[in-house]
């Protein structure tokens, strides 16, 4: 099962490296949104809760783009039937897609977070950097798991572009709440974690629940 997952994952990563369709667009999108926020909020620099909110909302919106495109390669080249005919466990498919989405999001964050520090963040990132990494890690895990599930759920509907954001964003609300609350004290002038354990705990619970749920339920999707 892991071998199958790795194969599918490698295929997805190779496609992305070759076509460069999702990750650059998502990254460009985040920077564009930062500019939007600059004009919308009429602020040159943010810190604390505003900074935390802008960062996480932007990442979530970029994730919506990534999720919509997660099964795009299969759809456009008719590859989904091939995948389904092969004796591949649906769980492998979920693991592969969720990992691919996770890696795409990490790639985006590698640019988006420094870009945020450059463009909008008042205090630097260095204040509580390891804690910030922890929040980013657990948050991205949750987004990836739920994102893969929503991508599969929306794969067969005609109204895919509408359904993905409408499903994904409410489902990710707990992630947003936890990440924004956890990140807020890390982006202040006098940065330092506050109640970090509590929010990381909530994120971990969310991640575990949704990974297990997606694995359990993925078998019933994309069947024919």
């Amino acid at each position: 099962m892991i071998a199958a997952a790795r194969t599918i994952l490698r295929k997805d990563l190779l496609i992305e490296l070759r076509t460069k369709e999702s990750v650059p667009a998502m990254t460009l999108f985040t920077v564009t949104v930062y500019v939007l926020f600059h004009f919308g909020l009429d602020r040159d620099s943010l810190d604390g809760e505003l900074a935390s909110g802008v960062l996480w909302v932007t990442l979530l919106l970029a994730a919506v783009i990534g999720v919509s495109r997660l099964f795009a390669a299969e759809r456009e080249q008719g590859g989904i039937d091939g995948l389904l005919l092969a004796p591949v466990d649906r769980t492998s498919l979920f693991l592969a897609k969720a990992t691919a989405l996770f890696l795409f999001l990490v790639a985006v964050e590698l640019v988006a977070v420094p870009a945020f520090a450059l463009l909008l963040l008042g205090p630097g990132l260095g204040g509580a950097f390891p804690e910030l990494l922890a929040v980013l890690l657990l948050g991205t895990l949750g987004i990836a798991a739920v994102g893969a599930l929503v991508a599969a759920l929306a794969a067969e509907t005609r109204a895919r572009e509408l359904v993905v954001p409408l499903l994904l964003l409410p489902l990710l609300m707990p992630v947003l709440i936890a990440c924004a609350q956890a990140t807020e004290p890390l982006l202040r002038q006098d940065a330092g974690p506050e109640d970090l354990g509590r929010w990381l705990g909530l994120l971990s619970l969310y991640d575990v629940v949704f990974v297990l749920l997606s694995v359990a339920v993925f078998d019933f999707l994309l069947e024919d």
Partner: protein
Amino acid sequence: MYSKGLAPLAAATVVTITAAFAMVFFYAPNDADQGFIQKIFYVHVPMAIVALGGFVAGGVFAIRHLRSGDPSWDLRSYVAIHMSIILGVGVLITGAIWAKASWGHWWVWDEPVLVSFLVVFLLYCVYYPLRFSIEDPGRQARYSSVFAITAGAFVPLNFAAVRMAESFTHPRVLSQTGGSMPGDMRLTFLVALLGMTLLFVTLWKLELTAKHASMQLKRMRNRARVAA
């Protein structure tokens, strides 16, 4: 099949709801802080609890549907979610009325139950477009069940997250659902909750019966058309 026990259930519902109404207005005392406004609590909170329970029940039925492949479980899940969404509209409207009467605004972010409910409601509203944009009936049922299970698991997580967030930014002004209710208020609340639950189950069975009959009718029509 679905209408078994419907008549006694309906009778019990009418009795309980009438009793609840009587208790709300003649038995329960006026709240010391909120005054008469607090009476809204007896309709708003039971509606919210029953709606959330209906969403979770929809998820449980969906699990049984996926395990058994029996479409009747999908029907039960669909009707439960459908009714909870309708109740949800009621929750949001009565919540807004309560907010306006208590704080002067039609919406407040202070009440974690109300805020969490808004998120849940927004999520479940997507059930319809998702369901009805899939044409194949088997696939439609399966995908709906997956959604119902995912959303059902989401409900408690979301409530926990919102509650945690609100307790930091807004100190809990309203603790109506806490344990600090005097005995006669609590009794009234429990009767109201029971009445709301019975109402939900009764209407759920009623709609199940109507839908089932309508589906059978469609099948009979198709058969008659084919035979002709």
